[in-house]
């Protein structure tokens, strides 16, 4: 191979990686190949081979820590198969003001937030809630754009409200504490849910015909009876996530307890049979394996990036520009929005964290704050075309609504995410309020 500077080799390897990804090569393989060739070009093929050989050793040495990922995925899969989402939707409808315009949309967002408390995946949240909420909203006369857009936006709450699979992946990658990250995500998650509900309310103010008033009538005391049925979800959340903060469980144990509780609740409610449990486990096996495959590829790519010293050079270069920390943070969010147009969330996190985290830490931001900013930025990618995964999921369930119409419906909800980004950038303490209150240290 011809001699070249690390910057040129990085540019070529990254271009090859994106080309492979666009050619439909699995992302994990594309990352691994680009990392291997980049490493080989820079430091010799012998060392690159040694590095590639040692990558699975990381899976072995961290296997117990990694087990938190399949456990949380199983918790979400079991919740999705057990039909808890339908109950949550009924509960959210009972809480929302009956008779007002857009009630079903706000109930959908609320139900997505509740479902996010037992499911750590946005796509699973959107898919599960979409199946129940969209047909009901459309039957009630909601416009297709508003109905699908509300589910797409509500679905994104799944990765912000703990437990969040993507935050766990980030924690493993950035060597941060999972409980601290979950605590840091709680306030932004709640605030995001509230802002999405506000957007839905504003939507029907501007376009009243999009969300006609609901005709649901409750008998006296019925609303409360329905709301009280939410105890199961709260019990699962309180025992698994609460137990994590009470110091009873490690993150893996909390996830396992949550998964077991979700399965047990499903079995006792006669919603989960052997068939559904097996389907949840099979789904978990494949989803977590495909995430781990990307993780292994990203490890190889990360080692190559570390060898190039690009993160260090980038930090030096940005420092020489004299930009404010906020400007740099906003520029990074801009890069995430661009990447979100053609990469899915986990890959985005795995590719960029080794580069951006040192840069932001050098500017005074902490790693926990960056984790939350990252998730909100990634959320935006989930509802922006052309690779908005939530849009695809909803499109698959509603074949008569085109992708651009769903994206158009989700567009107003992006404003909530933009506001959250601005809050996080200009008031970073927002993420450390709850961890500080709980006496947790957020390390720089």
């Amino acid at each position, binding site marked *: 191979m011809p001699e070249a500077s690390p910057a040129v080799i990085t540019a070529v390897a990254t271009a090859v990686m994106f080309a492979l*990804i*666009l*050619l*439909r*090569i*699995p*992302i*994990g*393989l594309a990352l*691994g*190949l680009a990392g291997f060739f980049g490493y080989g070009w820079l430091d010799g093929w012998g060392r690159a*081979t040694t590095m*590639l*050989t*040692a990558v*699975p*050793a990381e*899976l*072995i040495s961290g*296997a*117990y820590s*990694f*087990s938190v990922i*399949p*456990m949380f995925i*199983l918790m979400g899969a079991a919740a999705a198969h057990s039909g808890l989402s339908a109950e949550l939707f009924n509960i959210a409808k009972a809480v929302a003001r009956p008779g007002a315009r857009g009630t079903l949309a706000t109930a959908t967002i609320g139900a997505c937030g509740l479902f996010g408390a037992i499911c750590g995946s946005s796509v699973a949240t959107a898919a599960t809630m979409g199946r129940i909420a969209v047909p009901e909203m459309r039957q009630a006369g909601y416009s297709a754009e508003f109905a699908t857009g509300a589910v797409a936006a509500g679905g994104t709450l799944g990765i912000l409200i703990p437990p969040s699979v993507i935050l766990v992946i980030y924690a493993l990658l950035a060597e941060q504490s999972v409980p601290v990250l979950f605590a840091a995500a709680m306030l932004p998650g709640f605030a995001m849910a509230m802002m999405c509900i506000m957007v839905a309310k504003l939507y029907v103010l501007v376009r009243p015909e999009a969300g006609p008033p609901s005709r649901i009538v409750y008998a006296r005391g019925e609303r409360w009876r329905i709301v009280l049925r939410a105890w199961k979800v709260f019990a699962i959340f309180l025992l698994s996530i609460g137990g994590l903060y009470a110091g*009873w*469980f490690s993150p*893996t*144990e909390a996830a*396992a*307890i949550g*998964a*077991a509780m979700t399965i047990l609740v499903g079995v006792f409610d006669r919603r989960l049979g052997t068939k559904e449990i*097996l389907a949840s*486990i*099979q789904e*978990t*096996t*494949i*989803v*977590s*394996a*495909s*995430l*781990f*495959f*990307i993780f292994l590829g990203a490890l190889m790519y990360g080692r190559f990036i570390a060898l190039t010293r690009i993160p260090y050079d980038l930090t030096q270069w940005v420092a020489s520009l004299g930009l404010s920390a906020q400007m740099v943070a906003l520029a990074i969010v801009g890069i995430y929005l661009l990447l979100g147009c*053609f*990469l*899915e969330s*986990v*890959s985005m996190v795995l590719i960029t964290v080794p580069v951006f985290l040192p840069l932001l830490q050098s500017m005074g931001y902490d790693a926990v704050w960056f984790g939350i900013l990252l998730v909100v930025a990634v959320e935006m990618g989930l509802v922006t075309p*052309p*690779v908005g995964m939530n849009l695809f999921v909803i499109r698959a369930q509603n074949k008569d609504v085109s992708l651009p119409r769903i994206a158009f419906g989700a567009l107003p909800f992006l404003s909530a995410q933009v506001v959250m980004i601005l809050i996080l950038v200009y008031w970073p303490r927002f993420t450390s309020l709850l961890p500080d209150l709980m006496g947790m240290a957020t390390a720089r």
Partner: protein
Amino acid sequence: MQFRLWLTQALERLCHVIAAAFLLVALIGTVLDVCLRKTIDLPIRGIIDVVGFCIVVSTMLGIALAWSARAHIVVDLIDMTGSPRLLAFLDVLTRVAGIVTMPLLMWLGYREFSDVYDFGDRTSDLGIPLAWFWLAILVGYGLSAVLLLIAPPARAVRDA
């Protein structure tokens, strides 16, 4: 073709059963450990090693299954504009990339497996030989290659 299909389905079923069993063992083991520890202060010794091993086995078999189910995460932007022939070509390209890479990784992993086997490396709590972990990795890579070789082509290839 019939035999290939039968073999693919049989291998997939076997992988699913084993991967699910190991995942369940990890789940039940973790929950049992917590319950015993919290109620009668009797933790299960070496549960971390057991759960770790189960996750490695389940993950590696899952990687093979994801290859055959075409469930590895890809960016399918090109599907919107690409012709069936192009999509068929890309499907073949992915399979070839997997068929070349997986045995190569298996061969590289075999060297590591031999090393840990010769040195007799073990986990710290239960003393599970690390060679077992590496064996699971080799089996996962090997099964990925086999499933990629024998699995029927994607619909796009058949249509083209």
